[in-house]
């Protein structure tokens, strides 16, 4: 995705063919039919449903205007879910991305055997959420030795560590989820960084070190600024990905215990589907969608302006 920016750059100024309306329509038709039918239509339907109090059964009758949204904004668990989303986003940007960047620098360009490590680090990305959830539920399960061993190791390394159950402790469950998310997705970001790094000519960094910059300074003042576009892209993907995460959280904890790992998507599922409050659930979906949209627009405007080709990247 990041490449589009680079490619667009090259293409700037190229005159485009003025298309015949019939050709345009013909070529857009298949995508338009699919997209309008299965993506846009359900969204509009969802937005419409969100204005009703509806248990999902029987006709849509009880129009309530924006009541669902008013209830939502006052609902404490909704705030909690929103906060958990924010925590995951902050952790992703503050920890997961730097780790990915560090590893990209580490194995990125010169290390012999780097393709091997790269392949390995990216592997979890292709393993399905269902399988990942089963695997990690096993590892975190306090019944089995795996979590005991991990706790013992961590207890030795980290002096302030509190050994105990992971998914069963409201204090810890979000960290557990974050560990799994990092395991599964950091490879994606690392790959993007590696791609970005390869676009930076080594001469520039060498020139900096000849000018007396140490490694840290070179990284801080040369490499990272030159990577800024990739970094913006990864942050963007990371935020959207965190907001949209559902499968892993639902399969591992269903948002529990005591809502300690509830995120917007699981909140929507619980209060929309499980509780038979479809109108309300649709309202949560609208809010989630709006958050993504507003974030996209602002973020693109602030950080990705030069690449601004579409409303979203």
């Amino acid at each position, binding site marked *: 995705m990041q490449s589009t920016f680079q490619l667009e750059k090259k293409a700037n100024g190229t005159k485009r063919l003025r298309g015949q309306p019939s050709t345009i329509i013909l070529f857009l038709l298949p995508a*338009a039919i699919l997209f309008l039918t299965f993506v846009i239509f359900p969204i509009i339907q969802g937005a419409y449903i969100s204005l009703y109090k509806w248990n999902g059964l029987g006709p849509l009758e009880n129009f309530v205007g924006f009541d669902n949204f008013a209830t939502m904004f006052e609902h404490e*668990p909704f705030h909690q879910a929103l906060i958990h989303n924010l925590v995951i986003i902050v952790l992703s940007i503050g920890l997961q991305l730097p780790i990915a960047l560090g590893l990209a620098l580490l194995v990125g360009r010169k290390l012999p055997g780097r393709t091997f490590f790269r392949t390995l680090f990216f592997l979890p990305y292709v393993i399905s959420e269902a399988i990942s959830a089963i695997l990690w539920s096993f590892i975190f399960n306090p019944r089995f030795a795996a979590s005991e061993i991990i706790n013992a190791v961590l207890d030795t390394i980290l002096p302030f560590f509190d050994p105990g159950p992971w998914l069963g*402790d409201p204090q810890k469950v979000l960290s557990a989820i974050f560990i799994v998310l990092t395991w599964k997705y950091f490879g994606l970001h690392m790959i993007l960084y590696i791609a970005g790094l390869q676009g930076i000519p080594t001469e520039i960094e060498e020139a900096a070190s000849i000018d007396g910059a140490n490694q840290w300074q070179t990284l801080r003042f040369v490499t990272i600024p030159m990577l800024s576009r990739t970094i913006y892209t990864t942050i963007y993907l990371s935020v959207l990905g965190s907001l949209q995460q559902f499968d892993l959280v639902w399969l591992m904890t269903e948002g529990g*215990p005591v*809502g300690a790992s509830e995120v917007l998507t699981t909140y929507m599922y619980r209060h929309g589907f499980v509780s*038979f409050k479809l109108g309300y659930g649709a309202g949560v979906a609208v809010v989630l969608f709006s958050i993504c949209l507003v974030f996209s627009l602002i973020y693109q405007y602030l950080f990705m302006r030069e690449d601004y080709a579409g409303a979203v990247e």
Partner: protein
Amino acid sequence: MRKQALFVVSMLVIVGLLLTACGGAAPTEDPSAALQAQVAELQAQLEAAQEDADTSDLEAQISELQDQLAAAEEAAAAEPEEEVEPVVVSWWHITSEPGPHQEAWKKMADDYMAANPNVVIEITILENEAFKSKLPTVMQAGDPPDLFQSWGGGTLVEYAKAGLLKDITADMAVDGWGDSFGAGALGVYAYDGKQYGVPWDMGAVGFWYNKALFAQAGIDAPPATWGELLEDVQIFKDAGITPIILGEGEKWPGMHMWSYLAVREGGKEAFDAAYLRTGGSFADAPFVKAGEDLQDLIALDPFQEGYLGMGHDDSEAIMGDGGGAMMLMGQWAPAVMATTSTSGGLGDDLGFFTFPAVEGGAGGAYDVLGGGNGIAVGINAEPEAIDFLRYLTSLENQKVLAELGVAIPVVIGAEEALTDPNMIMVSEAVAQADYYQLYYDQFLPPATSEVVNDATQALYAGTMTPEEVAQAIEDAYAEEIGE
């Protein structure tokens, strides 16, 4: 700008037209339709001809064509060897673990199909959680299976109110089907005087305990009161034995503890007053007191490590492997322990005792919190589906389940087939109950149930007080019934 808008709008219109065209233009190649038309036409000719002259020729033509029509319909729909178009009955059940129970279900369906060659029973086996995700979607889309697993109560009521379930009240009267069930069991699957499903299992929640660990701790009799239970918990703690196993990750196991305490504290009166809004509320003293009683237990830290996030299966496995002294659970516990534990269950060491009496509570010691499994009937079910359901809940098939120990039968007389002493105890507890309360999370409407589960879990986690728990449930219920 306007041109752009025009373009987009025209695109949308084109696509819309195409879609409707696609939707409409789906002619099914059905030879019988053509034949039907031909028959109709000839019949019209016949009527015209009858008025004046000889009709035998036309009549012969008609009968010949009608034979052809029947043959074509058979060929179109039926398996080659079957003679009439089969009625398909869809049945969703959740006995997803392979074993005698699942085989028994299958055999019942096979036997029925063998006896009724015109019926095809399509079984969909879903794992419990998958079932709970999937059923609401098909129901909300107005597309219920003919027969499906149900626990009765509030969820069933919602479906019934929405007209998604079939009223089988009249069928219950035929051949004494309704009278074959034990008292009270049918009511769980009825709403507003109409029957929408039938039970096949009806049990009680109670404490399952490990006799060997009780002996090891020097406790010779199960606790009869809540106070004794608390004392026993302390004895177990001192002996280094985990007193109670609880899979609170799924919320309902711990909710049962609170509900049972509410049943003991308030009895039928308090619940009815709150539920029927006859001067009571779920924030009343007995419901708060239930939370306080539960807090007394939680304060002793009686549960296994990580219980707050542990699933039901895992908790059963721990109990089945001898990892704890007691577990509050329904009649399915022994079966689940046997399949989930590595040891295959506790065998003769497993015992059952009813929920202890609570000193000073308004509820009697014989009052039972329980529930069971049943099968609801979807609105589109054919008479064959109901007939099959009748067969499933026949005395003979109820005895099969009872012998396997996978159900506490609901049909009178089938309980004789129970062999397991613990299951007999559960069955007796149900039979003796003065007041039988269906699990709160099944009985109450779905959104309230969700709050009951969430709030009681918060009590375990220490994030809500007993008053707050009771108030949250009251608020949710008041909102749901539109107060």
